[in-house]
């Protein structure tokens, strides 16, 4: 698959001169993000998130399995990312491109390494049975900022999902189907989400939620994962244009604000959904 064609010099100059004057090519201001829309599927734990034209689907499924011998009292969380040419012709199935590796590593670090999910709560019978959760992210459309969109979808899916209720008596484990007993939500320690930035133009103007074109033209990018408690979970600025320390701190503060916004949006969407969804047993 040939590499994607680079934007022309005219396009680049146009984008830069526009952002220099405080307005981006799609009409947003540098710190303005696109509209987020979250919708839920029929199953619990199936979430589609769209950020402008970028769309990601997150799905959580659970099975019971043996725990790993080093950690007999912890459940397992597996995060997989599926990039397909459907998202963009630059992706191919098979060997992951650099961008795919970056995104899936960031998601791993954001959700798994920061211990967002309480894995000890996934334990059913120490050493014998635990829940193994599989979080799959399907990237449907890449119009820039896949990472932010994916992180919102992932956290929403984890909050939306309900695992079947279990009862343990001695060594006897009974798993109740959703018709017998209402399924139980997962236990999350905190909810980290990613905010990505790009630096455009000779003045390195900082923009939030870059579009695909802006990502291609950027001198540098930076992604920060935070939770609503103002804790930084991951900060990744890998190369790109060199920045003074204050600019980095400014981005961190903008990210704090944005994550709070995102958390509110997610909470509201979950609330809306719970009104119409039936989870209890009749």
């Amino acid at each position, binding site marked *: 698959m*040939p*590499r994607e064609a680079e934007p022309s010099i005219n396009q680049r100059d146009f984008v830069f001169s526009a952002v220099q004057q405080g307005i981006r090519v799609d009409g947003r201001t540098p710190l303005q993000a696109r509209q987020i829309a979250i919708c839920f599927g029929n199953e619990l734990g199936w979430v589609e998130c769209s950020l402008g034209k970028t769309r990601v689907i997150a799905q959580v499924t659970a099975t019971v399995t043996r725990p790993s011998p080093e950690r007999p009292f912890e459940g397992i969380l597996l995060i997989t990312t599926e990039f397909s040419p459907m998202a963009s012709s630059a992706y191919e199935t098979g*060997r*992951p491109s*650099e961008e795919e*590796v*970056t995104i*899936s*590593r960031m998601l*791993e*670090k954001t959700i798994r*390494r*920061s211990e967002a999910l309480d894995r000890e709560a996934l334990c059913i019978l120490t050493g014998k049975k635990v829940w193994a959760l599989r979080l799959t992210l399907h990237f449907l459309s890449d119009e820039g900022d896949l990472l932010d969109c994916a992180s919102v979808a992932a956290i929403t899916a984890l909050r939306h999902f309900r695992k079947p209720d279990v009862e343990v008596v001695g060594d006897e484990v009974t798993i109740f189907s959703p018709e017998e007993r209402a399924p139980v939500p997962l236990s999350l320690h905190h909810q980290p989400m990613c905010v990505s930035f790009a630096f455009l133009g000779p003045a390195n103007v900082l923009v939030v939620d870059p579009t695909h074109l802006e990502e291609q033209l950027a*001198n*540098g990018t*930076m992604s920060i994962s*935070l939770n609503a*408690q*103002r*804790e*930084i*979970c*991951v*900060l*990744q*600025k*890998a*190369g*790109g*244009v*060199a*920045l*003074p*320390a204050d600019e*980095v*701190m400014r981005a*961190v*503060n903008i990210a*704090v604000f944005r994550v709070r916004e995102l958390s509110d949006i997610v909470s509201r969407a979950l609330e809306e959904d719970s009104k119409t969804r039936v989870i209890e047993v009749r």
Partner: protein
Amino acid sequence: MSRFEPLNAGNLRSDGRRPLELRSFSAQLTTHPSADGSASVSHGLTQVTACVYGPREAKNRGQTMHDRALVNVEVSVAPWAGEMRRQRARGDKRTLEFAASIKATFEPVIQTTLYPRSEIHIHIHVLQLDGGLLQASINATTLALIDAGIPMLDYVSSLSAGLYLTTAMLDLTSIEESDLPSVTVAVLPRSGKVTLVSMETRLHVDRFEEMFKLAMEGGKVLRGEMDRIVRERTAALARQMEGGGGTKEEDKMDTDDL
């Protein structure tokens, strides 16, 4: 099992250093004379070698760019590098991400526009690992690129920092890295700007700034050390090439290949 104490009562770390003290740093240039440039760097017990090939005709013609050189980075971690022997698979995502961040760090610093349609291949070997992998790799790559005579805008100097309660510490060992929130930064010392920031542990925003800025300052100090070593080596080479005589023992290259 005794609990690891990052900072003891006398304000000393587990290896006896003060919080802002760096580990012993040493570097050699031209460790692999067959490569265009090479360097080996140690921060305490962490040892990393970088070999640079190029700018040379690109192996993969399809990837070249018409107006600049292509930078490729390959990383291999020796199985004996860590505490336990581990054979890492090639194409392991973590290794790929590591290589991608090193490539992204150096691409804007190397003057790639001087070598269109060629490729610069950087190969990093991790020989011994005791924390500070990213910092050692970046420092080794900087020195290898200088050894190869590839023009750069500045040194890229990298250092890690961590935080224990309210005390910031520089240059972490692996046991400190696994226990404390830490960040690795790479700076361009002349401008004082930062080109890489990588943090993977949870830390409150208010406590981040101090640790971050200290790491940047530390990077600038490290540049002085690296420059001293580079100048010594360049002076020795210049001596040999001018005089053609009176070669001192330390001027000769270390390897005895052939």
